[in-house]
């Protein structure tokens, strides 16, 4: 793993500082462990129109071999988006972010775009089944949760 992660993250950072796809903005990347990005859904999906959501990326030492930990964080004007795969504590159920679905060729930008498109395609204004219970009981880190990807159409 020797020092591979920081080098690659540094490269990614310089790249996204220069240019990012529309609807994605870098908020802060003070170190190579935790970054914040804002995303917006650009089409007129009534669920998300006009809203901005904040994503938190946490990188382990073995990034990019292992996936980063990506969650939504809630602040005053940054809610958690409604989505059948997003728990109300910000944890995202996306196979891309699990050990199985992750691929080291992914990067911060591509993950953001995946989440963006996941929101864009959604029409259901609901939380995942068992959300309350999960939010109350979960002490695991997102990548250790064994999600059941029940609905690949969303």
């Amino acid at each position, binding site marked *: 793993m020797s020092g591979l992660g920081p080098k*690659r993250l540094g490269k990614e950072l310089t790249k996204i500082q220069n240019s990012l796809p529309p609807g994605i903005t870098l908020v802060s990347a003070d170190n190579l462990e935790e970054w914040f990005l804002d995303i917006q859904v650009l089409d007129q999906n009534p669920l998300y129109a006009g809203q901005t959501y904040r994503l938190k990326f946490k990188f382990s030492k073995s990034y990019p071999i292992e996936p980063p930990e990506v969650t939504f964080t809630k602040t005053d004007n940054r809610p958690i988006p409604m989505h059948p795969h997003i728990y109300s504590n910000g944890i995202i159920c996306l196979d891309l972010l699990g050990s199985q*679905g992750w691929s080291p060729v992914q990067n911060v930008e591509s993950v953001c*775009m995946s989440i963006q498109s996941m929101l864009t395609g959604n029409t259901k204004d609901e939380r995942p089944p068992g959300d309350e219970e999960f939010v109350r009981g979960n002490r695991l880190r997102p990548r250790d949760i064994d999600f059941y990807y029940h609905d690949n159409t969303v």
Partner: protein
Amino acid sequence: MPPPNTPEEGVVATNTSSILALRPSMSRDGGGDGGGGGGGGPSSAAAVDLRLLEYEDAVDENLICPICRVALVGPVITNCDHVFCHRCLVQAHALNPVCPVDRLPLKLVSETRPAPKIVQNQLDNLNVRCPNHARGCHLVVARSLVENHVTRYCDKTMVPCPHPSCEHTVVRNDVGKGCLHYDVQCEYCEGNMLKADLEIHQDQKCPNRKKDCELCSAEFVRNKQEEHMKECPEVEVSCKYAPFGCTQQMSRKMAEGHGEKCDYRVVGPVGEQLAELRSELTALQEKDRMKDRRIKFLENRGYTLPASNATEAISDISLPESSTNADMAPYESRDQYFLSLFETMESKVERLSSALAEVEGRHSMMLINETLQIKDQLTEIRSTLGVLGMHVRWLMNFRLQERGRVGAGSPAMPGSLAGNQQGTSDPNLPRRLSDTMREHPPRL
């Protein structure tokens, strides 16, 4: 499932030529891993991690590993035509046994092979900065050569401290200065540090390292004061016509103006010409000396180089450039160089043969001295042996005579002894004649 901007790889190498299969798989693992060190053990194996190098120019996107996002190191290509660093693929594969790009199931051994040579050559030719960049080596070199540079030549490589009981490392340049791992105090910030780190500290880290020049008020690094003094516009310098007699001192920026109206400027051009002529003269003298030498050589040997042949023959020998730089300087042509080389060789051979003769002479003298002594002793021993033999023979004769006279009464001298033997050896006396010496050694 892959998101829209998943990097599209595998454009590089779609040609699955069979020649490439001849390369043992993983032979290029990490390039810097097994290469140049030549079995120097694990320490030299990690001398240069090619993945951490800085590239001088932007690297073609097609040569970048989609996993680590730097130029490929030890590239391998999968059967689905995606190229990765060998180590990246191994790491990614350990977590998830699929191709990282298209997520098709992938067997590491049977479905990957080293990338085509042309890709590896392209990677080898990329210019990288020396990894000792931070310590001041500004070399830019092809990636395939960087390991060699770092392990053998780079002055800024960290090597073990020359002091036997010191476990620190030191830049190669400072090896000759002995152990630098003792505490010193930085004279600018009064911090304590190892002597070995002092220079870098004063150049780059010390909070008080900068100083305003008292004369020109430009800021400079204290440690580089001398360098600044050489270019500071306010420093007092002497007029450029000083060698011709101008004694005026003025600041550097004024010197230019002064030069134009210096009283000695008339002399200047003449002086320059003089210096030029002088240097020409020395060059000519040198040339003359060479010619003399050559003439002498040719006269002595009565040997003439057939000019045309010689130059032709020699012209296709390329001179060893680097080693001859110093020696080459005085020589005008290759012929001369070879001639002088020949002369020195000859004198060397002469010296050697005379030394050899001397050694030979000394050797034989020594041998003679030794052998003479041995010869003397040998003759001495021989004579003693003869005397002993005589004694023995006399005694034997004596004994035989005595036995011959058995019964005729015991002789006077070995009385009791002869009497004892008489009884035991009497019956088989006649056939024991020759054995008597062994069985009954004569007691003298």
